[in-house]
């Protein structure tokens, strides 16, 4: 466990609990949000962040209540628009550590477009999507990540919409950092939060989160001990894609299609396996498409970890560069000169 991890060799100035507010946490008992809150608070402590320089911005939803529980600056904004608030904030003061929280409804339904644009612009923001495949706050309608044929209050005969695959969406939006984690694996979640924070650019972290009231067990195949090893593919940069209780299964490409092989069996040699390269956009695009239903047989496992991470210039750096460049080129703005313009005349 990395709870005591120290970022710069010094003891962290603040403890996880220093990042907790005095407000009662109002999620349902058992909600996956609690674990995420806890990990975020510890990671902030581990990172030695100063709470006055952290801002947590969210939209609307159960997940979006998050800022109220963080003893930092925070804004609980309006539904779906958190990426825009976060962008403006970051551009007003790039020194702030901006964390954005959204849900699968807030982020992919009403807010899908803003998510798309913040990802391609690559502002330096840590963006956490709590995916519970349901609208929690409005009491249980299906969400854009819900599986087809989901029976909810608004779809008593089953939902018709093909779900969004968040990883594929983020890759399609040319995100510079795409990762997946889960509420029920605190260690993994924390390591993803560390990675997200370290990445300069928009860090997209999808977090599977159990809504035990309206969609209990949606991710149990991935989060529960018995099924987890066979369904989860934990990614490590430079390492072969291996999974399974005995770590005896691997992924390789055959005829350009990914395939599960038994290591040591007939055709399965570790050296033939797909080596994870988080900088390879082609591989990452394919990885993001590992999205099979774990309840079906012969399926590909679901990747967790960093699927993609590349450096590209952030919008905020570039904007501030332009501001500097403008002064270099044109000199500090002269208000009198601006007002007068280039053509004046005098009446006397």
């Amino acid at each position, binding site marked *: 466990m990395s709870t005591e991890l120290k970022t710069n060799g010094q003891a962290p100035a603040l403890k996880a609990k220093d990042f907790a507010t005095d407000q009662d946490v109002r999620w349902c008992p058992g909600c996956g949000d609690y674990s995420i809150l806890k990990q975020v608070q510890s990671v902030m402590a581990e990172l030695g962040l100063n709470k006055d320089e952290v801002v947590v911005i969210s939209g609307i939803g159960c997940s979006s209540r998050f800022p109220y529980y963080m003893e930092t600056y*925070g*804004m609980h904004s309006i539904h779906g628009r958190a990426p825009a608030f976060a962008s403006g*904030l970051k*551009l*007003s003061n790039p020194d702030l550590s901006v964390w954005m929280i959204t849900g699968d409804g807030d982020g992919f339904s009403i807010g899908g477009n803003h998510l798309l644009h913040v990802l391609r612009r690559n502002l330096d923001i840590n963006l956490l999507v709590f995916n519970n495949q349901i609208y929690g706050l409005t009491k249980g309608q299906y969400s854009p990540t819900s599986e087809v044929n989901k029976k909810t209050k608004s779809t008593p005969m089953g939902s018709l919409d093909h779900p969004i695959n968040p990883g594929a969406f983020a890759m399609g939006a040319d995100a510079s950092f795409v990762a997946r984690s889960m509420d029920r694996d605190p260690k993994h979640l924390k390591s993803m939060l560390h990675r997200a924070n370290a990445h300069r650019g928009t860090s997209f972290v999808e977090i599977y989160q159990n809504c035990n009231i309206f969609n209990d067990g949606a991710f149990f195949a991935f989060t529960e001990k018995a099924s987890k090893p066979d369904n989860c593919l934990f990614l490590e940069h430079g390492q072969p894609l291996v999974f399974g209780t005995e770590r005896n299964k691997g992924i390789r490409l055959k005829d350009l299609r990914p395939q599960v092989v038994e290591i040591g069996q007939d055709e399965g040699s570790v050296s033939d396996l797909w080596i994870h390269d988080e900088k390879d956009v082609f591989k990452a695009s394919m990885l993001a498409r590992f999205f099979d239903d774990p309840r079906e047989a012969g399926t590909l496992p679901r990747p967790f970890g960093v699927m993609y991470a590349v450096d590209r210039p952030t919008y905020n750096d570039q904007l501030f560069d332009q501001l500097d460049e403008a002064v270099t080129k044109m*000199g500090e703005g002269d208000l009198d000169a601006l007002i007068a313009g280039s053509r004046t005349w005098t*009446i006397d």
Partner: protein
Amino acid sequence: MSEAKTLLEDVTIKFAGDSGDGMQLTGGLFTNNTALTGSDLSTFPDFPAEIRAPAGTLPGVSGFQIHFGSTEIFTPGDHFDVLVAMNSAALKSNLSRLKEGGTIIVNTDGFDKKNLRLAKYEDGANPLEDGSLDGYEVYEMAITKMTRECLAESDLGMKEKDRCKNMFVLGFLYWRYDRNMQETLDWLASKFGKKPSVLTANESVLKAGYHYGETTETFSSQFEIQAAPLAKGTYRGIMGNEALVMGLVAAGQKSGLPIFYGSYPITPASDILHGLAAHKNFGVKTFQAEDEIAAVCAAIGASYGGNIGVTGTSGPGLALKAEAVGLAMILEIPLVICNVQRGGPSTGLPTKTEQSDLLQAMYGRNGESPVPVIAAASPSDCFHVAIEACRLAVQHMTPVVLLSDGYIANGMEPWRFPKAADIEPIEVNFAPPGDGEAPFLPYLRDENHVRAWAKPGTAGLAHRIGGLEKEANTGNVSYDPANHEYMTKIRQAKVDKIAEFVPEQEIETGASSGKVLVLGWGSTYGVIQSVVRNLVAQGESVSHAHLRYLNPFPKNLEAVMGQFEKVLVPEINNGQLSKLIREKYLLNVYQYNKIQGVPIAKSELEHAIRDIL
């Protein structure tokens, strides 16, 4: 060459031609030159609908109107004295607004079969030949041909040569109004310095036009317009959107805060984005967002971070921003929303002007959500109003809607611009760092009901804000009934209180009591001034008051109106200010409403006033 110069008091000229004929440039150059003579002036461009229609067609006509004179000029003029028509379509679409007996300067080369057909003249009909222009003074000139001939030696291609024909017209008018061309020649030199053949071509055609006036026998007279009795000082020409841009930059400088402008392009507000984007050396940040909602939300985010968040748009965009403006209202965060009104409803008449977003600005949000609304009266007024909007926003911690419109945005007038040093600073007080002891109370208010602006990054002030109702002082989420009523009322009271921080309503023209008060707002300023001055001069009991503050109203407004027997409210909408005045003061105002996407004409307004005098 004629010797006699006729002295005129004022003249209105309309330049009209195809979108490709360079009429906006011609108009602009003529305007600058006019300003140098000391005339007062007012201009208005008249663009075609958004997409360039095929050359020669009616929808493709582009126009520029200038009204200048030796008296004070308030409008670009209802009807023109002179119409410059570069082709058939330009003539056809403008003739109805030429004064009886007016002058037409016509490019006969724009009246061939094809042009006539494109302008939808009946088969075989040619207005230059069929007597339909009888009664006007028509000056026919083969401008295209003369331009080409003048450039016979030039190595430019035919297309490029033809592009010079607007210089011919310009030169000709310079002769007609007895102008010095030097300033235009200088401008050409600076503009085309690097393209010598283009420069020479433009120069020679300009001069050819001038010489044509000088040498031809067609014209009986040159005209002279003397300087207007404008206040002494240094002037420049200014357009509304330009002034708005400069006002925002000035507000940034005068407050010491960066301006953050989040916007999504939309006619006629896009030029604000373009203008601000060019001023990054003033620390101005521009952000072209993915839509209007993101634009306003980014601006709010920036304000939260301690910049002055500004967003700009036009009607349909304002509708989209409604929810976010409501958030800014309940957060009590500074925000300026510039709305350059255009013809509505829906996409409406995107290139035309209207004043029909006033009620939207007032009420277009869910719940009880009051925000201050102010409006610019003229192009140069946009400068002052922009500064004022920023001042109110940061000093009263509130979103402010600034209303302009297409007419102001694109209209030009001479402006005796201020010195930077004379502009009042905007005082900003961020909450000071906390001592970490006493809990920070983000919604504690001062005597004006204003809370503190607490920037993230400030030590000891960490706190959370949001769109849910908040407890007084602490800002914690609160569902308490009495608290909600208190907060609703205090937010209203905060806006109402702004009336104590804005100037009292003044009478612009006329006595402070009498028969009729003409109460205007926004871009009707010019036409009302001009008509009321005229009537006052004729001894009529009429006065003009112009509202810059629409919410809250100046605190003496009722008293001001009470001094008159009748109040007339002219608007380019179906009566929106009238509604507000009726509601607030239970006063049965008279209305004059024009909803045609174009400004009110002087004659129309005069008629409306005389009707109730």
